[in-house]
């Protein structure tokens, strides 16, 4: 393969937008949890568990975890893009990051629905 610089992957906008949207989701979730804590939801194990295992809260927590992983994916990949130049190592790091994040999301879902 000739050594030419190639750019134009056309996914820049999607990821940039996703990072912003997932950021907003995380801010809203954090505010909701902070408000609940201020109202004493974390007072005892039972009250905290009751709060976190409510249907809507499970849904919101899962959404938060997915947003966190997606947000982290864009951000961590940005770091690999800036600091790691060899394509093979970069691809390996991308794949490992993606696998780790998918794993974390699955693990988190399991914890949320075990409550």
């Amino acid at each position, binding site marked *: 393969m000739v050594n030419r610089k190639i750019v134009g992957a056309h996914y820049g*906008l999607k990821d940039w937008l996703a990072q912003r949207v997932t950021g907003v989701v995380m801010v809203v979730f954090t505010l909701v949890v902070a408000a609940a804590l201020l109202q004493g939801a974390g007072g005892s194990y039972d009250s905290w568990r009751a709060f976190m295992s409510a249907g809507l809260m499970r849904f919101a927590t899962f959404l938060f975890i997915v947003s966190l992983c997606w947000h982290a994916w864009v951000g961590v990949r940005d770091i690999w893009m800036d600091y790691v130049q060899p394509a093979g190592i970069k691809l390996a790091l991308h794949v490992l990051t993606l696998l780790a994040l998918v794993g974390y999301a699955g693990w988190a879902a399991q914890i949320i629905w075990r409550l």
Partner: protein
Amino acid sequence: MTTRTLQFKIYRYDPDQDQKPYMQDIAVEVDSTDRKLLDALVKLKAVDDSIAFRRSCREGVCGSDALNINGRNGLACLTDLGSFPDGKPIVLRPLPGLPIIRDLIVDMTQFFKQYHSIKPYLINNDPPPERERLQSPEDREELDGLYECILCACCSTSCPSFWWNPDKFVGPAGLLAAYRFIADTRDQATNERLDNLEDPYRLFRCHTIMNCVDVCPKGLNPTKAIGKIKDMMVKRAI
């Protein structure tokens, strides 16, 4: 006429002679008619004629005397000598992130390659009218703050994203110029221009740290222009 002595620390590197770069301490006497850093540099050249730097118009229009002055990019011809604190040496280095040709002269090839990549000219396939292609005053106003760029490279060479990926990230100067043509109502290649930039590297390496705005000697705002390009892409996509 009052005179004073200015102390300089200047980055020196002549690849034909020097093993590696070094900082040279040198002093120069300036008088009250010397107003700008460039005046002092011209006098420095009389003290040591081996110092190499670029300069041309000496009034902030040509953009050739961009330097890293006390750690901050700027034009020597627009930097007041009075702005330097007394007793501290003035540290001059070449613009960061570009290959050094000699002393304060950098190789701008990469910078201009990125500028060329955004096709910095009007694309309009209609036959030109007899006099000129007209714009409303409002449409013309949108180009203010865009067309004034002098391509001195102060912004792009102060941008970490450009340091890491100068071959892939267009950089603030190129993106400001890109928006200048995207915003131009006389241009017909808006879609192609947006396509050209819709890439994780070319546009989206910008993380809005605004070093470019901080150093622009013409007071321009590439970050704002980049934001407008992103806005247009979002509007186009939804």
